[in-house]
């Protein structure tokens, strides 16, 4: 399943890159793209475990930039 999420307070381009790499490493994620410019997260992941994976994504992003919020 491919889904797009809006991100708020994504201020650091470096962080965006770190988040993208970290998300790609999550089990079940086929592809991910964090656009610093558009403040958008595009994720392609397992249908079945999608919600579970999203929780993991939120955790990983909070580690990199705690202020940034993903609008689920």
């Amino acid at each position, binding site marked *: 399943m491919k889904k797009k999420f809006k991100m708020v*307070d994504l*201020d*650091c*381009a*470096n962080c965006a*890159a770190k988040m993208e790499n970290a998300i790609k490493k999550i089990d079940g994620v086929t592809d991910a*793209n964090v*656009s*610093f*410019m*558009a*403040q*958008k997260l*595009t994720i392609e992941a397992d249908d079945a475990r999608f919600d579970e994976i999203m929780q993991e994504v939120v955790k990983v992003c*909070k*580690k*990199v930039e*705690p202020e940034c919020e993903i609008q689920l």
Partner: protein
Amino acid sequence: MTKKQKNMLYRIIITAIIYIPLFVMEHMGKLEFQTAIPVNFLLFMIPYIIVGWDIVYRAVRNISHGQVFDENFLMCIATFGALGVGEYSEAVAVMLFYQIGELFQGYAVGKSRQSISEMMDICPEYANIEEDGQLKQVDPDNVSVGDIIVIKAGERIPLDGVVVSGTSFVDTSALTGESVPRKVGEGSEIISGCVNGSGLLRVKTTKEFDDSTVAKILELVENASSKKAKVENFITKFAKYYTPFVVCAAVVLAALPPLVLGQPFGEWLKRACIFLVISCPCALVISVPLGFFGGIGAASRLGVLVKGSNYLEVLSEMKTIVFDKTGTLTKGEFVVSKILPCENVSEAELLELAALAEGYSDHPVAGALKAAYMESRAEVVNGTGENGLTCVDTDRAAEGKAALELSMERVADTREIPGHGIEAVIDGKIVCAGNAKLMEKEGIWYETNPEPGTVVYLAKEGLYLGSIVIADTVKPEAKRAISQLKQSGVSQTVMLTGDRKEVGEAVAAQLHIDQVYTDLLPGDKVEKVENLLGQLGEKERLGFVGDGINDAPVLGRADIGIAMGSMGSDAAIEAADIVLMDDDIMKISAVMRIARKTLQIVKQNIVFALLVKAAVLILGALGMANMWEAVFADVGVSVIAILNSMRTLKVK
């Protein structure tokens, strides 16, 4: 400014109000206290905490999450170091300066995002549906295919569809950059995203909102920034190595001279701190993508969709451009210009056979034959002998269409032979309609028609019946477009066509095109492009311009595939890298200019940022620079680079 940013601004102002008097007093020597209590330290801690508390907090929090080396941590080390050697004033100043820079940076990025999204503000917010005689506003997402929507004067068209009633003029500038309005009436196709003029339109939707042109374009532009240019990838890789390198160098700088050479520890620690402050590559990581984003936005404003930052990059290096002829350099509007039957055949008969043979084909040549036939039948039914009727006359068009449909019953079977023509069974007899190659293939004697234009030869049961000439007009702006491209630095212009030699060469000569290859089958076109690609130099790129539907493989093979969008034909948008929304080839040189300017600005930023950082690093290591220069080299450079990148939006 967001609330957070306003907050920050207040903190900065308050800090400055407290700090400046302290700074002055220190300078004037008024802060020499001889007490045990570190009065100075405490005094300066007030502004320091006000302006810098969140940096320290974030540094600690991030370390606890496993993120040690980020800007917050480095700033802490740098300022703690300054505090440690007694330079309280400098510690506060640096923190203050840093926060000002960060605020400005956030503001600049926000502004850029805003101006780009304003430019792309073509998204319609609602659609009007008629319910019980009343107009109801609904979310465009909730409208189904086949629903009738009403578009009032001045409203933005919410979904793609066909006009059911009403006439108006439509402003397509949001999609094509063209300010000349287009006339629409019953039966006209209209595209979402355009703005309606003064007439009321009732439209039957043909696509859902997500599939409508405007939604697709918005998605494309948004995603365009995820296809990174080579430069962007380089910066990302560079950033990964740069930070650790500078941090290590800082550690070495702090440890080596004191330990090995017996130098004063404090002095070298300060220099190491300067290194740490400059170790963030933010200036590059933000400004480079921003620059490309602006370039893509500038192109969209022109009515040209660039599907990726990498394409902008390649476009700026384009040296050879290959054009397809039909539909690209010519209007693609075929009209029957001459009918030349053999002795015992009448014009009407020849035209009828041709139209029937091509009845099921979608090729433009077929369209021209069918149109001419329908017109001739409408005349017969009406009993008038006028020529040159256009389709605004809907009654006649309907008559002609009915006549054709009826006659098609005589056609039993058709077979299209690509690059040659059509073989059909009409009234039980085999009819061949096609070019000279088809006649030769079937071994039919024919009389060559030398007229410029596409010639359709007809034969029935192996007997030659005559030929019909169909002419296509060269686009009026084509010549200027080609010369502009040459001025923009394209050294080689090539034209490929499936048409025959005389036609191809005539058009090429008219437009001053360097090379022309004619009589090409679709597969040959790919081969030719491969040959041309092989002839290119290291940094030279090849672009192919075509109409998307027939040229998909060639568009894919070329370094840059440019397609005629025809107001959003799906095939074109899919196959190409760059889409000309209104088929205007003059825009190609304009986009090249945008691409060049974008690359230029991006390179300026990279050189500037690296130079300044390197300079301050060296000066810092030698003791000739202090914290101020360090913070400038980090934040100041970043702000300048971002502002510079915003210039890409303004290129026309």
